[in-house]
């Protein structure tokens, strides 16, 4: 890792009341959250939720109407050059110089960032051929190039917009390993994703954005805890449906001999009911992040 000139542990990235409109459309609306140093932070939301707009504000591609983004206390607009020197950025839509090959891009970005070393190891890990012209690369290989360019010179923060799109499962695993190694060496990752199992697998915390507004900001664990439990019950004798009319419990499917339920929050009351029933089989599972996500958006 490069020498860190921000010595004290602090929020790596802070969004403070960030608002960005395009005409009448409010793309990001008063969003506030922060990313701690050394975290892998997932930024979740459906298409058009405002994830990329928020990231573009951080990268100073676009300017906020109000509020601000700071990176290690530095304003993303005022101190943009300084901030970008410690950020490696992977955009969601990668566009490169079609007539150049990967090596040309790596050299170009290296020169702009003042980096002398060539990323042989990273290229090998991602199984990328830097001699092939970009116009002939598949979207997966373009994504690999984007990851290599973002990680050039081991920046202090990685900002990744949909980082695994276009990568096959094997390469996704290589990418996750890279991210873990990067985190262990002290780096901070801020990544947007639609891929909830991916976020579940690698992120420490998440923020969920919906229609430009922040819907939730949680550690992954607390998000899971507060959210949904799924109960599948099989009865040895018929039971009444009305038994499951409990607050925060949803009947997904019901027959007198079986029921599937979703319970929000702590399922204490439901467990008390279940204890009195003639249970033949029971299966309890945590809802996936996807289900939690859908719950937040409902």
């Amino acid at each position, binding site marked *: 890792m490069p020498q860190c000139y921000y010595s004290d542990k602090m929020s790596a990235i802070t969004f403070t009341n960030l608002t960005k409109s395009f005409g009448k459309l409010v793309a990001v609306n008063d969003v506030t959250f922060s990313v701690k140093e050394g975290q892998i932070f997932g930024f979740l939301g459906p298409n058009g939720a405002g994830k990329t707009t928020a990231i573009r504000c951080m990268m100073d591609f676009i300017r906020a109407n109000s509020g601000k983004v700071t990176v290690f206390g530095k304003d993303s607009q005022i101190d943009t050059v300084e901030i970008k020197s410690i950020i490696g950025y992977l*955009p969601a839509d990668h566009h490169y110089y079609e007539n150049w090959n990967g090596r040309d891009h790596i050299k170009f970005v290296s*020169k702009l960032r003042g980096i002398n070393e060539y990323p042989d190891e990273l290229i090998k890990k991602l199984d990328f051929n830097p001699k092939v012209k970009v116009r002939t690369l598949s979207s997966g290989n373009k994504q690999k190039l984007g990851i290599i360019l973002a990680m050039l010179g081991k920046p202090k923060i990685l900002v990744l917009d949909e980082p695994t799109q276009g990568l096959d499962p094997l390469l996704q695993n290589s990418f996750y390993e890279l991210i873990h190694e990067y985190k262990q060496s002290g780096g901070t990752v801020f990544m947007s994703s639609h891929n909830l199992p991916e976020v579940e697998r690698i992120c420490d915390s998440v923020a969920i954005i919906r229609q430009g507004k922040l819907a939730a900001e949680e550690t992954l664990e607390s998000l899971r805890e507060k959210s949904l439990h799924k109960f599948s019950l099989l009865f040895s004798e018929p039971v009444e449906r009305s038994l499951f009319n409990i607050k925060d419990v949803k009947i997904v499917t019901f027959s007198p001999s079986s029921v599937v339920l979703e319970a929000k929050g702590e399922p204490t009351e439901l467990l008390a009911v279940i204890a009195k029933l003639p249970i033949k089989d029971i299966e309890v599972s945590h809802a996936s992040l996807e289900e939690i996500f859908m719950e937040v958006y409902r």
Partner: protein
Amino acid sequence: MFTIFRTTVRERRTSILAFTLGGMGLILLYVGLYPTIQSQISVMNSLLAAYPQGVLKAFNFSMDAFNTLEGYLSTENFGLIWPIMLMFLGVSLGAGAIAGEIDKGSMGLILAQPISRTKIFWEKYLAGVYVIGVFTILTVMSTPVFAKMFNLSFHFGRFAMLSVYGLLLGLSILSLSTLLSVMFSDKGRVNGIMAGVLVVMYVLKIVSGLKDSLINLKYGSFFYYFNSTDILQKGIYDHWSYLVFGLVIVITTGLALFIFQKRDISI
């Protein structure tokens, strides 16, 4: 240092070389033909004399244009073909500098690096200045060399002055197209608008010569301030041209930089 400048120039190296050699080749052709023209000077002059006076005036043709190499080249090349080549270059460079990069999406790669928008702008702009300078100086200043090859007499100073005026014209076109380039993220749109603007300017210049009541329209045209007949054939240098071109360059470039620093670039 100057990575964007060097990369931009390197990217256009082949096309600039081909374009410049094409321009030089054309001049060589005209200069090579001049001894033949000279031997038929009375026929050529009578040919010019057959044109209606209004047309000669509108297109700034002089009756004795073919008497000198400078007059001949001014009529045949530096009055129309060469400025068109210069315009094509200036518009293409200006449009490609910012709008082209945004259009392609590659501006995102540059903006993500630790380099200010001001530096990006200047390196892109200066790459255009460099290319226009190379084209102008190599094409115009190759003329005395070619004239020497064919043992023709010439005024070196007039060609040097034509380079200066040509450079100013080229930079004005570059600056104007760069301004449009930062306003619209669409290279095609910049090319289209610039083509329209330059055609209108050319028409203004022609129309102003057709009728006395329209004479003031010439002030709205770059082609009035770049008058190859006056510079080459007559050795007349209009110092107002420096001021007008200078103002166009400074104002449009300053405005373009201001807009580029302030605007959103959604890539």
